[in-house]
């Protein structure tokens, strides 16, 4: 693990940015997360070490967007592209954050970081060079949908960071696509700041190839009256972690999350979410689905934290899981931590297989078992996929999920 060695020795490299130095310093005392910590207990140690086995290659190999052709109305950005972004229209502006703004914001975030909880972010920020950090300030109205790509090329480890400030009264659709090539590791950290009255439909599609790994972390701060909708999908990664941290900084905000992870072969994909309500009248509706087949392992851990100040919070969390093989396993742990008394909080979790009665019914109508299973699965997937912005019409995600091995 060359990276860990690098962290341990912390060679003073002139090319390192100040942020990188701070994060390296933070990691130095314990460069790896504590495997006994609840957030890392179930994470495969060998897979994590495999993640770290690739070396960092600063030079980006050429990247072809594998998905449907760019349409006129969509803004497409690739993290790591050196071009300067300045899109100004009469209704809106999308501009790159200045280095000072970026540094200030990230530094502030780092000051709240905890070793185990934010290990993925610390690693990301200590590896992410200047070119791989994209900071955007979005303002105005009638903004076309935005697609942002991160990718890791074969036999390398890439760290990419995205920071987005969404100004007041702004409303966007954003799709983030993380692509892992064969034998690669991608570390993606996203920081989102939603100012008052802003609203985002955020999609995260992480799509791997053989033996690709992903550490994907998403930090969202919601100010008053903002709405954050997240639809996420992670599949085809040998090892992937999706860590979501959402803070409603003054309550009165809405959060909707619909996420899904699909594991096959011997893959391990996990989702960790932490939603904090720091003010009254917060709203959360979360559903996380997992599907585990073959020898794979799917993990969901979600915590909802409602302190005394967060009166009249309405939060619900549901974890639905399908276990399709004798050798696969699913772990799920929805959690509630509540101090306020005037709240409505609930969570639920189920683990089962495909519904036999429904399968039987379809078979009596002449549908083969394979087709019937696919039908059931497609309805299971559809709830999440339809929530992912932009993708639903042109990306054929459903087809990918149902028909690829």
């Amino acid at each position, binding site marked *: 693990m060359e990276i860990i060695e690098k962290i341990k020795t912390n060679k003073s490299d002139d090319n390192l940015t100040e942020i990188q130095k701070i994060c390296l310093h933070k990691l130095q005392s314990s460069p790896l997360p504590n495997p006994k910590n609840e957030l890392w207990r179930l994470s495969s140690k060998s897979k994590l070490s495999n993640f770290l086995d690739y070396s960092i290659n600063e030079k980006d190999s050429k990247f072809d967007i594998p998905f449907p052709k760019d349409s006129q109305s969509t803004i497409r950005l690739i993290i790591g592209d050196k071009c300067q972004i300045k899109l100004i229209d009469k209704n809106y502006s999308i501009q790159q954050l200045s280095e000072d703004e970026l540094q200030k914001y990230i530094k502030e975030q780092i000051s709240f970081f905890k070793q185990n909880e934010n290990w993925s972010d610390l690693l990301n920020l200590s590896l992410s060079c200047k070119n791989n950090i994209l900071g955007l300030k979005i303002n105005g109205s009638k903004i076309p949908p935005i697609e942002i790509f991160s990718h890791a090329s074969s036999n390398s480890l890439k760290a990419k960071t995205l920071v987005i400030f969404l100004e007041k009264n702004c409303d966007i659709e954003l799709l983030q696509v993380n692509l892992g090539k064969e034998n690669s590791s991608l570390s993606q950290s996203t920081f989102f700041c939603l100012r008052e009255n802003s609203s985002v439909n955020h999609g995260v599609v992480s799509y791997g190839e053989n033996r690709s790994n992903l550490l994907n972390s998403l930090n969202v701060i919601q100010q008053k009256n903002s709405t954050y909708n997240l639809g996420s999908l992670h599949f085809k990664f040998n090892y992937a972690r999706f860590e979501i941290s959402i803070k409603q900084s003054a309550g009165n905000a809405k959060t909707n999350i619909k996420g899904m992870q699909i594991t096959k072969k011997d893959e391990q994909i996990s989702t960790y979410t932490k939603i904090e309500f720091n003010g009254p009248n917060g709203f959360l509706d979360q559903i996380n689905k997992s599907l585990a087949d073959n020898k794979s392992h799917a993990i969901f851990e979600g915590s909802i934290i409602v302190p005394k100040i967060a009166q009249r919070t309405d939060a619900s969390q549901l974890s639905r899981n399908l276990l399709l093989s004798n050798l696969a396993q699913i772990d799920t742990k929805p959690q*509630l931590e509540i101090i306020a008394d005037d709240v409505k909080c609930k969570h*639920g979790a189920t*683990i089962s297989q495909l519904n036999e009665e429904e399968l039987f019914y379809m078979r009596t109508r002449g549908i083969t078992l394979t087709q019937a299973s696919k039908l059931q699965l497609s309805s299971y997937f559809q709830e999440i996929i339809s929530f992912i912005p932009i993708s639903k019409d042109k990306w054929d995600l459903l087809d990918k999920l149902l028909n690829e091995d």
Partner: protein
Amino acid sequence: MVNENLVKDVVKEPYKYGFVTDIETEKIEKGLNEDIIKLISQKKEEPKFLLDFRLKAFKKWQKMKEPDWAALGYKKIDYQDIIYYSAPKQKEKISSLDEVDPKLLETFDKLGIPLTEQKKLTNVAVDAVFDSVSIATTFREELAEHGVIFCSISEAVKNHADLIEKYLGTVVPASDNYFAALNSAVFSDGSFVYIPKGVTCPMDLSSYFRINSGDSGQFERTLIIAEESSSVSYLEGCTAPMFDTNTLHAAVVELIALDDASIKYSTVQNWYAGDEEGIGGIFNFVTKRGKCLGKRSKISWSQVETGSAITWKYPSCLLLGEESIGEFYSVALTNNLQQADTGTKMIHIGPKTKSTIVSKGISAGKSKNSYRGLVKMGTKATGSRNYSQCDSMLIGDQASANTFPYIKSQQPNSEIEHEASTCRISEDQLFYLQSRGIEFEEAVSMMVSGFCRDVFNQLPMEFAAEADKLLALKLEGSVG
């Protein structure tokens, strides 16, 4: 409409079991080492296998670390500052209850526990444990007629050593956890129940645990064995005097159910909880586990947890036998500065096993109440099912309620359902009851009782009524 001005954080009703019995006791010196363990074993005239069991457990305990994963905060326990053996002095071995020190009988009378056999109407056999020893067991002859063995574990060690040697530590091994290891090393007394094949125990069995001395810990051990096609209902109650120091209680309960056997284990735990400032109270670290070894066997835990400053307790079921059933019904109430981290573990190992979990947590004052549970479906648990329901009720804006369910499945042909919710006492319902002339506190108590109904329905009659009253009493003055 709930009037915020009415909020009072203090339970006014004093803890009515808080008296101390003035009785001459025999105590050994404070501290824990091999010599102390040998001394306890010697005092109890134990066979060698048990001393070896204790010493082995002690060695393991020394290497273990006190667990810190529970959502509990308490001052560090000094294990060398505890007396590990304390017993009321008795001149000679007692052959009948008439010879028990009247002061002790009076104590249990005051607690409402009928030790005198005239009070047969209750039809409950009682094993009364006072500090480190069992002082009396009632209805023994009647039980013996049916072949049921119900005695203190010390007696069982002497008279039924074969059963003890065969089963002790098979459900909760000494190395299971820190507190189980400590208990295995120093356990002083507890109850032993053996129900022979095909026997339905003719009456409810009951143990009553009383801590009297402020500086000694209580480490009791209960072992219940239900042979094929037998069944038993067992009740457990606990109280302690009010001291401003914390007393440690680390018990181990092991249940074994063979083919078609059923064990129902009910607890009303009312240890002293400390005062409103959080001073004093029992530290209750208990390991309770049942093993459904046989086919179609059933173990059902029901508990009402209202006492203790700290509760750390997870009554569990290992469902090994085909079609075996595990149940857990719990009401945990915390008030003032009490902290409870309680729940259950349902480990499905055998095929077609079923489990049900119903947990109700009520947090008032500045207390902290956490449900922590594990449901695991092993690879062979085909056709197994689990249903869990955890509801929390918050009273006042300073109490906290947490839910930490861990769910793990390795068997696709099994189903797990879990649901949890949090609520407060509905203002509309309160208003309705008050408009019908029901006093505010009574209305609250009615609603709390309604909230806990699912669990109370599972308790034996005597306990259900007591539990209802206990909750009302504990909440008095804390709701506004």
